[in-house]
């Protein structure tokens, strides 16, 4: 039984791991911290997986658990923090054309979002992931109206950082 659950979990998580990586990229600034947060997210997902009833999609549940871990559970690692940036490989774009505009945009976007506070990061992240307001407000525990107001402010702030 445990074994089956484990196999299912590993398959589900492996398929959706990009969600966690994106969150790690937004909430940390170096590779060590990225790995650290990713590990904590993995631990939390696995620990709570038996309670995941499947009445929502695995990915929906994972957005919640991973964001909550980044916002509420993750403590900056006490390990020595290297000042090295996330490697540029992280910002590769799916494209065959030789055009680095979008790659540069993506890098600028990540850097800009990192300047926002934890809640604004979550809002912008869910917006970029195309999540409906209903899901965003449910994930954060604020009303739909408040989610909208806060989202608009976060977007404005982000635009100002991107184009000062």
């Amino acid at each position, binding site marked *: 039984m445990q074994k089956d659950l484990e196999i299912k979990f590993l398959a589900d998580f492996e398929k959706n791991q990009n969600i966690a*990586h994106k969150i790690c990229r937004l909430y940390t600034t170096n590779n060590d911290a990225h790995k650290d947060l990713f*590990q904590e997210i993995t631990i939390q997902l696995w620990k709570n997986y038996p309670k995941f009833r499947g009445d929502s999609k695995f990915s929906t549940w994972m957005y919640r658990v991973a964001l909550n871990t980044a916002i509420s559970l993750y403590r900056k690692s006490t390990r020595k923090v290297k000042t090295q940036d996330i490697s540029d490989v992280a910002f590769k774009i799916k494209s065959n054309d030789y055009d680095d505009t979008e790659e540069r945009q993506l890098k600028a976007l990540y850097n800009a979002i990192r300047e926002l506070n934890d809640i604004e990061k979550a809002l912008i992240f869910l917006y970029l992931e195309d999540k409906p307001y209903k899901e965003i407000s449910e994930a954060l525990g*604020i009303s739909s109206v408040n989610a909208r107001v806060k989202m608009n402010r976060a977007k404005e702030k982000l635009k100002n950082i991107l184009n000062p």
Partner: protein
Amino acid sequence: MDVLENYKKAWSKQTEVAEKVSTNEIYKMAHSKSSSIVKWIFIVGILEFIFWITINIFTPDSYSFFEIYKDLNLETLINIFTILHYIVIIGFLYLFYKNYTKISIADNTKKLIHKILRIRKTVRNYVYYNLAIIVLTSIIINIVVFSDEDKMNKFFNPENLTMSINEMITLSVISQLIALVIILALFWLFYKLVYGILLKKLNRNYKELIKLDS
């Protein structure tokens, strides 16, 4: 078109090659030890319970304290007090554990932070309770002692130094107050340090979430 829409397009096209981990690595990670804030709050909370229970167990057991209570005819009162005290401690432990088990990472963020902060509040109230007990006990002992000159001599001046009653009262009250201030200052420092580190982020994010609702 909104300038962010362009960025959003770039966002949706990003690949996942960079940090991709294998199922084998995921398995290893899933079975490693968590170092989450909740875990630390839980550990610090348990340590605080142990700390105060240790103080409770060892202080009244020391011979001199019992002698003092006996001398002051406070034995029965202290016994009743102790039993009540342990019931309250068990109550706190139960609340602490119950609040801890209520935490679910799949809750919405606001509810989750609220629940985490509630565990911490339980421990804080527990510490307040213990400090209140210390102050209350000292006040009771002081009242009993000050109401009887013989007792006062025995309690505050066992060496029989020549001192007037007023001097004795002033001296004992001042020294007790100094001790109290030092103890409170130490606790305050400890709390600022430990919980300051642990809760800074939670408090900040919680405030951010409730700012709009207020």
